[in-house]
């Protein structure tokens, strides 16, 4: 499967990945026109800053054994046997947030606008060029690589 590999040392916290993610999920927008203040404008990846350790990219791993899928009581989360990515069916989701509770890395969150769905990485599955965050990273701190499933 394809996974976004992370080189923490290269990240300088520019947050282009955040903007790219918001834009990728705001229809009709691009990196320059994306409305960052729209309530539904949310990033699915996070950069944590610490004075000692610097910047830490926290991105969904689409884990080999995804705890989010294991915790899903509605059947909304499934690991795709072919792509290896965790698929999210927003309509089926019942908003119980056990996946938020069970993600060991704290990547998942309810959406800010309605607080009834979750915000999670879809690997920009609908985009030919792959994940928008990776394309937007000027430092190559994140890159897509094929890993064995």
């Amino acid at each position, binding site marked *: 499967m394809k*996974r*976004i*590999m*992370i080189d*923490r040392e290269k990240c300088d916290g520019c947050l282009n990945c955040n903007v790219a993610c918001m834009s990728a999920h705001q229809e009709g927008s691009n990196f320059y026109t994306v409305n960052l203040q729209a309530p539904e404008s949310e990033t699915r990846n*996070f950069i*944590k800053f*610490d004075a*000692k*350790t610097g910047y*830490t990219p*926290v991105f969904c*791993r689409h*884990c*080999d054994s995804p*705890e989010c899928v*294991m*915790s*899903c*009581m*509605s*059947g909304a989360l499934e690991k795709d*046997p072919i792509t290896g990515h965790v698929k999210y069916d927003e309509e089926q989701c*019942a*908003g*119980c*947030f*056990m996946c*938020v*509770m*069970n*993600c*060991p*890395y*704290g*990547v*998942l*969150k*309810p959406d*800010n606008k*309605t*607080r*009834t769905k979750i*915000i999670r990485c879809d690997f920009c599955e609908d985009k030919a060029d792959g994940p928008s965050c990776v394309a937007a990273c000027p430092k190559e701190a994140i890159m897509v*690589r094929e*890993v*064995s499933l």
Partner: protein
Amino acid sequence: MKIVIIGASAAGISAAKTLKVMDPNTEVVIISKDDTIHSRCMLHKYLGHERDAQGISFVPQDFCEANNITWMKNTRVIGVDPQKKILKTRHHQEITYDKLLITTGAAYFIPPVPGMREAHNAFGFRDLSDAKLIDNASKNSKNAIVVGAGLVGMDAAFALLELGLNVTVIEMADTVLGLQLDPKAAGEYQKIFEGAGAKFLLSEKVDSVELDNHQNATSVHLASGKIVPCDFIIVAAGVRPSYDFLEGSGIAANRGITVGDDMRTNIDDVYAAGDVLGISGIWPNAMNQGKIAATNMLGGSAVYKDRYALKNTASFYGLNTLSLGNVNPADEVNCEIIKREDKNNYQKIVSNDGLILGVIFQGDIGNTGFWQYLIKNKIDVSDIDKPIFDLSYADFYGIDQDSGEYCYTL
């Protein structure tokens, strides 16, 4: 090989899925007393008319056909003969197996209060069939009583409010959701429910249920002397593992079927998983146990390690809460409690000597999943020089260079 699974909820379905992924040639038979596969965590959405029966399924409609699984619905198993490897059903069928997985879950418990067990209109709230009975009863009713203000009771109350009924919740403890929340977080839910029309009678004990000539409850008498009239009652006073049908089978049980870390019972080729074990009533744990049992039935060596079960989320009327671990430490427990609050949020962390014992996040629960890892793995955070609320996974960041998966660096 023919593997028979009794029960079609989290553990059973998770096991069936695992079996079919690991070895598509294994014959898998699921036997269930229900005629639908449904998620009981969504029953309130059915009762509240937000979703239909298909909408509360947690597998696609063609799950069994697509995976080549034989599903015997409306079938209740009444006996197991592990010597002959045969199951007996209520309709006198005999079903053979090579390996058996018992995932029959739990059944609601109606306390021995005079009149309550006898009442035709006192319902549990566990299966879709219960929800259907309640839905029917609610049609010509005005006043409903819910006994118990745990998660199931609150789910039921929520659904009945959606149906426009007058709902009175009776609870012995002095707060709602007492097992999951502290009084402050619980009070927020009580307020919202009251805003939606619910009445709460807390610190109240049901003494008896008054029945009419048709054995229908007409009112509930409380120990305090109060009398609450009702058209029907939902009893949400807890559940008990259901394994009555194992009597005489030799399969060991003690308030739940006894299994090792590999989900094997004391009898060869018989496994059990999920709520029927009586060790946790948590969906993700049941899924995990089902997966482990399935792996081991096919000769694997999976072990149930992630046993942590003091974890819950609640979501009502747009107010979300995550609660982990011990959030109401007894006075004698030597610990530090830090709270943070604003208009929309209440957060609480209970810690002792660098170990997190419990947390509540109410309001914004985003990105809080790592707290469970810190609590269940007893990770000492005292060396991290930052306010405890600023902790995140980044403070324990580690990455496997080959797979790109995260791990914890401690």
